[in-house]
């Protein structure tokens, strides 16, 4: 186990990158998912467009998408650094699923809540912010949390296109030390800890709001 301990600082630096990548992708994915869920309520034709996108994302493995964008992007003349390329793919991929989660949250509320708010003279933004949003988000939170955990683990695929993060760092250490078991066990422990911490944080937020 001393191999694992010796290399822990290196792995933790990789984990730092994993967290950075996760936050950079999860924040825009969440915001975009929320906007899309709201937009499709008002604009029906947008619904079929978003459905098409969702089907596409649902049917393509994330790793295929990552590799595809990695090779395609330079050809379009858009030369994004790998970090931003991966962030873009992760955000676009998970935004599609998050929009579904938020849509389910909005749909779970009875129409009567909208009617009660409207009949008090609340404008749509006020109604969304004070009445519909807090209730819909509470419904959507557990599923959203699952997607965030999935996204965090999904960042490990970035190692395939050479973006240095926890998984690539582990692979490097294993190559050097020829000790795959303790190193990958450490990596697994770190991933678990990140996801577990997120879960605890979200539950605390839930309690604070409830």
């Amino acid at each position, binding site marked *: 186990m001393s191999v694992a301990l010796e290399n822990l600082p290196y792995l933790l630096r990789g984990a730092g990158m994993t967290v950075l990548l996760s936050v950079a992708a999860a924040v825009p994915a969440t915001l975009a998912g929320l906007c899309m869920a709201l937009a499709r309520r008002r604009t029906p034709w947008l619904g079929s467009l978003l459905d098409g996108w969702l089907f596409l994302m649902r049917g393509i493995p994330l790793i295929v998408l990552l590799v595809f964008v990695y090779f395609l992007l330079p050809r379009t003349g858009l030369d994004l650094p790998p970090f931003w390329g991966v962030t873009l793919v992760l955000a676009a991929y998970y935004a599609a699923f998050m929009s579904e989660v938020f849509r389910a949250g909005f749909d779970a509320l009875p129409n009567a809540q909208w009617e*009660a708010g409207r*009949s*008090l003279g609340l404008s749509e933004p006020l109604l969304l912010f004070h009445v519909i949003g807090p209730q819909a988000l509470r419904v959507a939170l557990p599923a959203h949390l699952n997607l965030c955990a999935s996204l965090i683990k999904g960042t490990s695929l970035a190692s395939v296109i050479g973006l240095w993060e926890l998984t690539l760092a582990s692979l490097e250490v294993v190559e050097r030390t020829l000790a795959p078991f303790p190193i990958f066990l450490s990596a697994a422990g770190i991933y678990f800890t990140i996801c577990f911490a997120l879960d605890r944080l979200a539950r605390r937020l839930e309690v604070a709001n409830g």
Partner: protein
Amino acid sequence: MAEPMLRLDSIEKRFGEVDILRGVSLDVQRGEAVVLIGPSGSGKTTLLRCINMLEDYHAGSVSLDGAPVGYRLEGRERIRMRDSELAAVRADIGIVFQSYNLFPHMTVLANIMLAPMKVRKLSRDEAEARARDLLLLMGLADKADLHPAQLSGGQQQRVAIARALAMRPKIMLFDEVTSALDPERVAEVLTAMRQLASEGMTMVVVTHEMAFARDVADRVVFMEGGLIVEQGPPQQLFGNPAAERTRQFLGRFMNAEGRTCG
């Protein structure tokens, strides 16, 4: 006669192929309590919901205190109001629903304070003072910090009335507000409504509570098939209805009254 508080002029409403309202006109004077009665499917709830545009109507016009609700007429064209205009008009129309529709994630107090603060721009202190006064009026002063789920149906419905009143509406609409309550709770809600009527609030009430209609209404309107069949003071409508259909509808009620009173 003075301009009515509410004027409904030839309201028509369809759901698909079905005519729900077939040209209903009704004036409600300031301070008047009008009770709409009629069999299920007669269009009374739909009519009530057209007053604040929770239901769109296909023809006719609604005006509150002389100002149009829902549609403006420009020449011969009906222009639907923008959402923001509609919100401003709705702020003056209080409505209480059968299923209370309180906001479950807020306390009783927050339910009542939200719209006065956000729409009427009252300060937090003003809104809270107003909310506590109304809770006192409704006999719920000690419930301010509870959530709706912690209250009985009758208490929730009285909070809903307080929430609507906190906007100081020009008119109050009640849509079968006692239908979801058990008989013991019905009385406490009806008492609150009686009090409002006696204080001169303009009210339109859809109800199956005939005793309430008889005692509180200034005018009872009997609807069927999307039309007003007959209307008049309660003594006339309940005592000597002109239309055979009204007589038929009220028959059971009048017989029951006869037995208990006579």
